[in-house]
């Protein structure tokens, strides 16, 4: 029979019978009585008798058991129940706060340790976020995927599609709410015909661009469907927010006004919102214009939008809700097979792929991803060391805590509740550290953004923007929680294993104490091992960086001024382009203080992957399935090798006779020659460009191998093509000055361009040495500095940990030391004894760390080309450094131990 029924039947005879909820209340009371009696040791019968007595009394007084209140019996709504849970939590937090406040020294050291660890991680996260992780600034970014069609040997455009292929896929697919296409363009922009033209990065986009991305212009409107149907008909533009704010002073009346892009009047129809910063992490496009304007903007002879083999647009799509990536992939593969059959020439040997934004970013810049991963690992190590410190401090306190815990256990607090209490304390400490860590992160982020921004050219709209935003705060919170678990769980667990009676009785540590010391030793060993790994990594980076600086880039750094021009921005015809560049070089050479001037389509170390050309060297047998090799290339004029002092090893440089219509020629570097014609004279050999139908080019010169893309790159095959036979509108001018510092040439060079065409904008004007610093020295220096800071931090934290442990064990062994000294030990013996303890820990840590760092070194070497193996010096210097520092850290407690007065120590206990 249940309790309610029993109460009801007892009161059945009385009139009136009490209400249902009174009966329930009495039943609760009866049950509690019974359970308490049983818990107190009563037998079932005895307990039941008590309850029966109580029921009898209720029956006697049944008429008074009535609730006369008119109020309906209230059931507390869930919110209030939650509130009562909340009150419990609040109580626990208050208790935890009291515990932390009671030990301000411990709290400060612990919070600071973890705050440093968290700060490093949060700052790095913001950086990773800026270069890799931050989602596209569009509506529901998770549904956006990229669509690429790359051939296995295609490195150049990372699988861009041609416009006709895009159009066909867009019209046939069922998996997407829309497919968009876009393409970056470098164009001159001016407010009016009279205003100075500036080169800006903008985007050519399909008409559905804004609507598919769910981006609503903050002023005006996006594109109407008909504005992207007819090539060249609708010169309309949506301005980028930053450009509008910074260059047009945020003037709202610009909407319905006009801006000039490459000299064409464009009607401004809208301004993109501030949070829409473009389609990649770097570029902040100044404007968005319909792709259909591409033919007019580029002044291309034929319509690039109708060239099926011209792979120029990046394609993205918004998956229909419920459609998974795999399904879209399957559908597009089918459609693509159809397109391959229809247009085998253009589409052969290409695979279509659907990827998420993150997959795409990692693929397009694996080096960044690897550096990100590496830095994350280093930062995680720092955090682990910091957490180990705090765990160690907490284990040290566990002796005091074990009594508190025992008392509370004796009072009947459940172990689960105690665990919760202890973890609440850790969590509170971690949150405190998180808040402090955000402060450190802020400093780190400021450093990152100023350093990173100085690495990109200032005059284009390229931004690296680590920032302290909600994502970073959320990450910090998460890191704090993880650290709480890292440093809180083990000590909490340890405390819970407390045996009530011995803990209450004993003053010493006994068995539990010894176990704890072992745990603490393990932590310190781990800390030292991890700092060893950190320092080895830093040493490797440092050594690698030194090598980088010592590397011979193969070309001169001083005496050179560079600037870039793009005649398509003034819509020159090929003849005009030819004339313009010929005049430019001639007039520049005529300037006072100028030794020579040369043209190149890109300056060294600034050659994107786009410069790769498909090449078939004469007589070379490719493996089956491969038809050609992608080889990086540059288009240069006849003065280039002389101006940059690139050594010609065999044959000749280009001459004025290598012009359009004459025999096609090419110059290759040593690596190229060695790869395809080993041990042969390359002069007079031939290569084919593009494919088996392409033209033959005769090798006329062999040049020394230089650095082409990165300063750390391995020796790379490379070829040069003469400008006169491969004219293109976008070129850079390299000018050699008489003086080592070429900077004073900037303004006369600008004047030369202005005199030739006032509408021709100049960009990327800089001395080559400053560019080199920016390009080759800056990024590794940033990585090095950050890694070194982390190494230092990790080391400091580990030393604090070691010092704490040795000092603690000295304090614990005061009595033992006293006895030793009383029976004749010398002070020096005591010092040695304590030092030995520190040394054993340090050497164990160093050995373990040495083993671990071999693995880490492999990862590093694989991740950063040119880093190579750590040099032997690193493996000697770091352990020596660690040993001397750990000696120092244990020396102070050792000295204190040697000053122990035997009598006082013995009286103490």
């Amino acid at each position, binding site marked *: 029979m249940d309790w309610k029924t029993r109460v009801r039947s007892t009161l059945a005879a009385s009139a009136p019978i009490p209400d249902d909820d*009174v009966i329930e209340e009495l039943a*609760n009371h009866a049950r509690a009585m019974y359970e308490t009696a049983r818990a107190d040791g009563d037998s079932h019968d005895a307990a039941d008798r008590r309850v029966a007595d109580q029921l009898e009394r209720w029956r006697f007084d049944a008429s008074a*058991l009535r*609730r*006369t*209140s008119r109020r309906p019996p209230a059931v*507390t709504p869930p919110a209030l*129940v939650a509130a*009562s849970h909340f009150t419990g939590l609040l109580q626990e937090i208050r208790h935890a706060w009291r515990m932390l406040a009671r030990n301000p020294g411990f709290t400060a050291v612990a919070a600071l340790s973890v705050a440093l660890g968290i700060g490093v991680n949060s700052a790095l996260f913001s950086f990773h976020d800026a270069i890799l992780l931050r989602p596209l600034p569009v509506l529901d970014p998770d549904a956006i995927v990229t669509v690429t069609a790359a051939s296995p040997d295609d490195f150049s455009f990372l699988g861009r599609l041609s416009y006709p292929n895009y159009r066909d896929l867009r019209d046939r697919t069922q998996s997407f709410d829309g497919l968009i296409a876009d393409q970056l363009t470098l164009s001159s922009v001016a407010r009016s015909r009279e205003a100075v033209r500036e080169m800006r990065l903008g985007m050519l986009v399909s008409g559905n661009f804004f609507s598919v991305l769910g981006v609503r212009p903050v002023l005006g409107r996006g594109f109407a469907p008909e504005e992207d149907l007819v090539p060249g008909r609708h010169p309309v533009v949506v301005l980028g927010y930053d450009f509008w704010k910074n260059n047009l002073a945020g003037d709202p009346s610009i909407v319905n006004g006009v801006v000039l892009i490459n000299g064409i009047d464009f009607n401004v129809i809208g301004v993109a919102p501030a949070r829409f910063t473009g389609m990649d992490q770097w570029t902040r496009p100044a404007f968005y214009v319909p792709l259909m304007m591409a033919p007019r903007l580029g002044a291309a002879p034929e319509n690039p939008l109708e060239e099926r083999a011209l792979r120029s647009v990046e394609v993205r799509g918004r998956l229909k809700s419920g459609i998974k990536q795999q399904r879209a992939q399957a559908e597009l593969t089918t459609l693509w097979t159809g397109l391959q059959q229809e247009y085998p020439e253009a589409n052969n040997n290409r695979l279509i792929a659907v990827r998420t934004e993150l997959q795409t970013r990692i693929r397009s810049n694996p080096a960044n991803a690897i550096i990100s991963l590496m830095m994350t690992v280093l930062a995680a190590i720092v955090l682990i060391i910091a957490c180990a410190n705090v765990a160690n401090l907490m284990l040290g306190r566990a002796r005091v805590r074990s009594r508190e815990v025992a008392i509370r256990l004796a009072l009947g607090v459940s172990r689960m509740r105690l665990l919760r209490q202890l973890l609440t304390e850790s969590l509170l400490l971690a949150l405190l550290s998180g808040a402090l860590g955000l402060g450190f992160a802020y400093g780190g982020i400021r450093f990152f953004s100023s350093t990173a921004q100085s690495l990109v050219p200032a005059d284009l709209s390229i931004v690296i923007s680590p920032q302290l935003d909600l994502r970073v705060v959320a990450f910090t919170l998460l890191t704090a929680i993880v650290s709480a678990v890292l440093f809180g769980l083990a000590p909490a667990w340890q405390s819970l294993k407390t045996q009530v009676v011995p803990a209450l009785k004993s003053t010493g540590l006994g068995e539990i104490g010894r176990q704890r010391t072992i745990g603490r030793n393990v932590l310190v060993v781990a800390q030292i091992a991890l700092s060893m790994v950190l320092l080895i990594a830093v040493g490797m980076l440092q050594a690698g960086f030194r090598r980088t600086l010592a590397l011979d880039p193969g070309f001169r750094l001083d005496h050179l001024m560079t600037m870039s021009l793009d005649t398509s921005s003034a819509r020159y015809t090929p003849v005009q382009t030819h004339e313009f560049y010929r005049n430019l070089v001639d007039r520049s050479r005529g300037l006072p203080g100028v030794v020579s001037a040369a043209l190149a389509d890109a300056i060294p170390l600034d050659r994107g992957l786009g410069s790769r050309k498909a090449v078939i060297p004469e007589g070379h047998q490719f493996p089956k399935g491969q038809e050609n090799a992608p080889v990086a290339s540059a288009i240069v004029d006849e003065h280039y090798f002389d101006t940059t002092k690139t050594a010609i090893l065999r044959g000749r440089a280009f001459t004025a006779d290598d012009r359009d219509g004459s025999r096609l020629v090419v110059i290759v570097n040593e690596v190229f020659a060695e790869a395809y014609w080993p041990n042969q004279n390359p002069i007079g050999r031939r290569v084919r460009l593009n494919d088996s139908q392409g033209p033959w080019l005769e090798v006329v010169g062999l040049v020394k191998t230089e650095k082409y893309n990165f300063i750390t790159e391995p020796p790379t095959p490379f070829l040069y093509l003469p400008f006169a036979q491969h004219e293109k509108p976008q070129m850079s001018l390299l000018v050699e000055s008489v003086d080592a510092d070429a900077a004073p040439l900037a303004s006369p060079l600008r004047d030369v361009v202005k005199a030739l065409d006032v509408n021709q904008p100049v960009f990327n004007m800089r001395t080559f040495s400053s560019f080199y610093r920016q390009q080759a020295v800056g990024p590794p220096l940033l990585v090095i500095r950050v890694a070194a800071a982390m190494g230092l931090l990790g080391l400091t934290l580990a030393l604090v940990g070691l010092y704490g442990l040795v000092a603690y064990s000295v304090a614990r062994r005061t009595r033992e030391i006293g006895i030793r000294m009383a029976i004749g030990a010398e002070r020096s013996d005591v010092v040695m004894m304590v030092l030995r303890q520190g040394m054993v820990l340090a050497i164990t840590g160093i050995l373990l760390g040495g083993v671990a760092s071999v693995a880490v070194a492999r990862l590093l070497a694989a991740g950063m080309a040119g880093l190579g193996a750590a040099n032997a010096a690193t493996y000697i210097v770091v352990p020596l450094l660690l040993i001397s520092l750990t000696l120092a850290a244990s020396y102070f407690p050792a000295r204190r131990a040697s000053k122990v007065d035997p009598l006082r120590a013995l009286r103490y206990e």
Partner: protein
Amino acid sequence: MPASCMLCPHMGINALERELKRGSTEVLILALLEERDRHGYDLARLIDERSGGAISFHAASLYPTLYRMEEKDLIEGRWIEKAGQRRRRYYRLTAAGRKALASQRNVWETFFDALNRVARIRHA
């Protein structure tokens, strides 16, 4: 039984006890609820425990008292369900209850004071 029997020692003490108990019930409940919200069994148990069994509160009179106090709006009862537990009726002090507690404490203090001065019950 003659009226003088009221004065017979045994009966006198019983009567005093009864009167005191009845009068003290409310202040005990109010004081316990001042600390925190509690359910009926909790109140009965605490009164028993804290008085060292001297005031063994017969639950027979507890609930009628609670209901009466609720009616007078000194306390407020409500069913509360906690996760994984049976719902229980918790009582809490109302503003009026808080006032009543203060004034009753005053009354009792005056009473004890007077008693003490007359009968030297407490050692001052």
